[in-house]
């Protein structure tokens, strides 16, 4: 047997393609894949939101953002009111059957009487709200209403697709994504996009009324805030509520609904609001 020197032909073990072209094709493919995923996720948002565990929601929204920052000074008047509010929330929560959720409450200086719930159990009450409420029951109704939104996860649902997409990004990239979410919440709230529909408002009202009944034994004071708002409406000729509480059921409709409940369950003596809250 004779050894015959022969060169091995070129290109047997390598594929002759341009690496740059391959790179461009693959990265566009990946971008396309991600885009499709994001689109699918955002289409399925409403179905997916309810599967986000409460714990995850609280973790994602654990920050207190610019719009809902409780006072850092424990001696201040704001802090005193906030402590009072969170005690009231705790009492209301005791009246709830089923799962309990932790809430944080912040008072915001604003000329509009208002209250709203943000994802992660943050409840914000504006300072002028206290001038439109006479009793603790009335205040409990407002707080209970916001708690009702949170129990039904309305804020998260209202934030909607942004949250699902961000959550997906956070899961895939391994970051906690809280910075992105923080800026998103702030811009959503500023634009007044966090709105609830008619059914959601009514459900929150009903939750609040049932909490009132359990804690005080009657639903008296439930319509207090809305009565006061209606007076303001008559005076100024328009609904003074901005974004969050501007409701689809008109104020009159809600008052009628609530009054019917109050009439049915009977009204007893209302609890006075403490002076430091009334004068805040």
């Amino acid at each position, binding site marked *: *047997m004779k*050894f015959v*020197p*022969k*060169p*091995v032909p*070129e290109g047997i*073990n*390598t*594929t002759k*393609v341009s*690496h*740059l072209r*391959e*790179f461009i094709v*693959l*990265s566009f*493919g*990946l971008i396309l*894949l991600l885009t499709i995923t994001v689109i699918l996720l955002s289409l399925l948002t409403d179905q997916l939101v309810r599967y986000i565990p409460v714990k995850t929601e609280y973790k994602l929204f654990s920050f207190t953002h610019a719009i809902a920052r409780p006072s850092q000074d424990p001696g201040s008047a704001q802090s005193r009111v906030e402590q009072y509010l969170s005690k009231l929330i705790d009492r209301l929560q005791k009246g709830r059957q089923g799962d309990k959720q932790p809430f944080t409450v912040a008072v915001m200086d604003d000329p509009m009487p208002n209250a709203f719930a943000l994802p992660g159990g943050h409840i914000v009450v504006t300072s002028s709200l206290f001038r439109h409420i006479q009793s603790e029951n009335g205040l409990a109704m407002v707080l209970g209403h916001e708690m009702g939104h949170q129990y039904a996860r309305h804020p998260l649902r209202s934030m909607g697709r942004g949250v699902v997409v961000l959550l997906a990004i956070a899961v895939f990239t391994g970051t906690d994504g809280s910075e992105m979410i923080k800026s998103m919440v702030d811009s959503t709230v500023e634009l007044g996009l966090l709105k609830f529909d008619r059914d959601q408002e009514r459900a929150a009202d009903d939750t609040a009324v049932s909490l009132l009944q359990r804690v005080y034994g009657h639903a008296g004071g439930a319509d207090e805030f809305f009565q006061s708002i209606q007076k303001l409406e008559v005076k100024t000729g328009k609904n003074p509520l901005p974004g969050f509480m501007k409701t689809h059921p008109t104020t009159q409709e809600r008052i009628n609904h609530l009054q019917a409940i109050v009439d049915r369950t009977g009204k007893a003596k209302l609890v006075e609001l403490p002076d430091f809250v009334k004068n805040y």
Partner: protein
Amino acid sequence: MVQIGIFIVLLLLGYGFGRWTEYRHYQQLLIRERDSLPLPVTNLKTPPHGNFHKAYLVSGNVVVSVDYFKRILAALRNVFGGRVVSYETLLDRARREAILRMKEQAVQSGADMIYNIRVETASISKTSSRRDSVGAVEILAYGTALVESK
């Protein structure tokens, strides 16, 4: 933004340098392979018939690592599957270089042929500690060199 900038710069650097060195290496490989062609090399297990008076081990090894561009390209391939072309040329070059080094060693020491050549690969990477640590592959070619008695 800065991170994206760094990423693109690394990608371009990796692509530029990678392509340039690959081109030069292939040119060099072709010449050296042609020069070492007359040395018979087989992977037979038994020594061929002949009047040989000396036998010894010859070996050549190469350690290669990937450039940034190739690694990203391979990672993209990981998503879709298929031929990892960016690693193909890399390993092809390394294998040929290792065999060439072995042959050149044999020629230098006056051998007339190499039999029973083997090629082995070992990966050197700190996979346990961090995911994106630099990975490298060692390719070792070894065989038994024979010297004919004249």
